């Protein structure tokens, strides 16, 4: 049993580190982990709310960009601003980076740029969601195997 736990923990550690190294997560995600008590689902809950936010805001942006007439870039920009904020607060580094670029395209009223960013943001948040799900699953497996989820030191 211990060997299994140790292997899972190693996997978990490697996987988590890779998410940081790929720039998918940043140190704000580490901060969220710091706020979580053992056994609580705080990080998972916050991220779940974040993903709901993504769906809602991306929907807003898509609708605002899907006008046959004139696009109101300020409306798009308002949603991008919100997404930038919440992605920053949870450590979703790539999503946040895309929002920065997206915001610039809104400010310069660059339609193609906005549409491209919208597609990328959509892909990126979904990617994050899948990877975090894998990470949380590993945590569950470790606990089920009788082990403790290790604190992963990113630095």
């Amino acid at each position, binding site marked *: 049993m211990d060997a299994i736990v140790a292997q899972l923990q190693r996997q978990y550690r490697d996987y988590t580190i890779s998410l940081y190294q790929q720039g998918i997560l940043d140190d*704000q995600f580490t901060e969220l982990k710091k*706020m979580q008590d053992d056994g609580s689902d*705080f990080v998972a*809950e*916050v991220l779940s*709310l974040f993903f709901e936010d993504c769906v809602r805001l991306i929907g807003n942006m898509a609708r605002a960009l899907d006008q046959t007439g004139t696009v109101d870039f300020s409306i798009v920009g308002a949603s991008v601003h919100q997404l930038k904020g919440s992605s920053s*607060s949870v450590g979703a580094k790539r999503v*946040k980076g895309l929002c920065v670029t997206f915001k610039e395209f809104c400010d310069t009223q660059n339609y193609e740029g906005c549409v491209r960013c919208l597609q990328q943001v959509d892909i990126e948040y979904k990617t994050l969601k899948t990877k975090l799900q894998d990470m949380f699953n590993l945590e569950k497996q470790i606990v089920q195997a009788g082990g403790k989820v290790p604190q992963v030191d990113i630095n």
Partner: protein
Amino acid sequence: MARDGGVSCLRRSAEMMNVGIESAPLDLDEVHVLAVDDSLVDRIVIERLLRVTSCKVTAVDSGWRALEFLGLDNEKASAEFDRLKVDLIITDYCMPGMTGYELLKKIKESSNFREVPVVIMSSENVLTRIDRCLEEGAEDFLLKPVKLADVKRLRSHLTTKDVKLSNGNKRKLPEDSDSVHTTSLPATTLPPSPPLTILSDSSPSLSPVEMFSSSALSSPIDDEDGDVLLTSSPESSPTTEEESPIRRQKLRSPGLD
């Protein structure tokens, strides 16, 4: 957690205050913070940050709700609202309707709450914005995303407690005055704040006078007279090895390290 925009109230009724409960232990470590942010994710995060540092939190989603909670949304000052105990107000800057700056002004204009420290949070590092808020009386300006160290620093400011003794006198608890800190802000004369402790411990080192010292009580007992003035304006950030004094000025880009 306050997931909706509603308000979890800690209002006290006038009747409660008339009950003689001087013998009950004092609620010293129960710091009550009013957090204002239109973003649900940010609200959850700031609430957690505050809870983890032993604060009681009321989180609302707009400046209007905040004013409503404080009883400042109508002209007549109700006696009931005088009893509301708020130790710190922390608000986002960019909010639809009423900005954090506008909320700050309203709070500073009120007689009941002007002494309560107000901290502004923003995702944007705009110096003119920061200056404007500080000039208007903001205690501090935090750049988002807010970190645990930021909140711990704020928390360490709120360790000056007014102790209501049975004879009705207020007494400030003496604090550890060994810390040396620098500040970039003009400040009125203030009691020194204790050195920032890395480990989250809500009890500062107190003199033996502090007979009522206890860890955070699970059920707060209302026995202070409900006077809203709780602390003098805490001094601005002490420096530690963890953060540079210019964090507030935030010369680094948000999100990068």
